[in-house]
């Protein structure tokens, strides 16, 4: 697979690899994907009192572009409010990383992971009142966390 320099950079030097306490009230966790499909992303955000994302971490099982997509997403999330973060689009990730067409689904997965993490944070903090937030990605994260 011929990857762009940006994908290789994020793959070789992934930003923000790690885990936060998924039980903490100020941490939102999203886990999306499936092992048999070849990619699983866990993305976590830590939200400050003012609603700004102060830290983001990820762990990803997947190909080079899946790892790069989640690494880039965590980089972008820091310093954003959760509402701003909610507007993150997979197409932005795909464009920034120049993903080949067959790898665009990796950026979709990263977007799903971000939404799932935000929804998890909102649910924990009683902020989940919008019906649109009850997306499939959120359900996935809920199931995994229920383990």
């Amino acid at each position, binding site marked *: *697979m011929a*990857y762009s320099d940006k994908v*290789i950079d994020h*793959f070789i030097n*992934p930003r923000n*690899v790690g*885990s936060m306490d998924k039980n903490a009230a100020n941490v939102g966790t999203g*886990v*999306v*994907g*499936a*092992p*048999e*499909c*070849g*990619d*699983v*992303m*866990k993305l976590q955000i830590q939200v400050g009192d003012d609603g700004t994302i102060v830290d983001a971490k*990820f*762990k*990803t*099982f*997947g*190909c*080079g572009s*899946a*790892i790069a997509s989640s690494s880039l997403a965590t980089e972008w999330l820091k310093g954003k409010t959760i509402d701003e973060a909610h507007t993150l689009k997979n197409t932005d990730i795909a464009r920034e990383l120049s993903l080949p067409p*067959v790898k665009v*689904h990796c950026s*979709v*997965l990263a977007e*799903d992971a971000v939404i799932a993490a935000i929804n998890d944070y909102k649910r924990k903090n009683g902020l989940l009142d919008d019906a649109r937030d009850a997306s*499939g990605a959120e*359900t*996935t994260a809920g*199931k*995994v966390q229920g*383990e």
Partner: protein
Amino acid sequence: MALDKPIYLDHNATTPVDARVLEAMLPYLTTDFGNAASVNHAYGERAKAAVSRAREQIAELVGAEAKSIVWTSGATESDNLAVKGVAEMYREKGNHIITCKTEHKAVLDTCKHLAERGCTVTFLDPDEFGRVSAEQVADAITDETILITLMAANNEIGTLHPIAEIGALAKSRGVIFHTDATQAVGKIPIDLDAMGIDLLSLSAHKFYGPKGVGCLVVRRKGPRVRLALQMHGGGHEGGMRSGTLNVPGIVGLGAAAEICRREMPTEAPRIQALRDRLHQGIEGQLKYVKLNGHPTERLPNTLNLSFAYVEGESLMLKMPRVAVSTASACTSESLEPSFVLRAIGVPDDLAHGSIRFSLGRTTTDDQIDVVIEQVLQAVNDLREMSPLYEMVEEGIDPATVKWTEH
């Protein structure tokens, strides 16, 4: 090998042309450039003599008669000629073909093509190691069976079918037996007569010859196998395959065959020892590693391993100094993992984390040390960033989690 060049452990994909092979070929590209069919002058005669010598060299390696060699462009063409040629020629006798789900696409897709045109094809299920038994084949034979086509060795996992037993069975039941021996030739002993093989496909570039040349060995007696020709034209190769012979390629194939025959007794054990050291070096220092393929009935150079909780493409990216291949879907356009690993029951998540190491003549002791080190480092690094590995470390089996397919 220069430092910037990766260590090549992908010999089942292709091999470099041996320097001795290249030397044998060169005159036939320049000074002795004649057409082997130009029998009325010295140029043609020299080319024809070189082709005859190559026939003997390859025939000796696979235990066949020199006259039974039909030159082709490679194993894909040989497989097509064998399978379609038999199906068309023996149509009146029957229309049933027996093969296996782990065959190379050159055989599988040819069989599927024939199935769309009135043939009945049985695709046997291999066992968990990738083998079919002679009993399985016997049970599948009907009055309509005209062809059994089973590879000698699998390209992805290296598993060897019991070719001699199946050959004897085919003979006793009067069914033609074709084997795609592309991966076996040059790596393990193959003997057409002793193994009861009627048709055998091979390709030069898998055993240190040039790309674009191969042959189909067609048994001439006991029984004499006839084929419906697939390439019409000047009637070369006894009418079985028209087209001007690729003389330099054929000379290279012959030279490569002779080197393999001479060196196999020392080379195969050397490569197997390196392969086993690689396996032990990895398995002894890493958890959750699974061998794909048969533990013993396997090519001496092939090692296919699944590394749980990491994905194959990222594993290869993590090892830029090692050239290997993966059955992970993420390197394919289809996003489907290997059909071979599926057929032997490897779960998709493990298939995604599989790497095939195939060693060869260029592989050295020092290289194996470097590769072991690189694999350990890469797998450990990726597991550190794997949410699945994290679950396992926390005592959660990812297999018990309800995932959403996407």
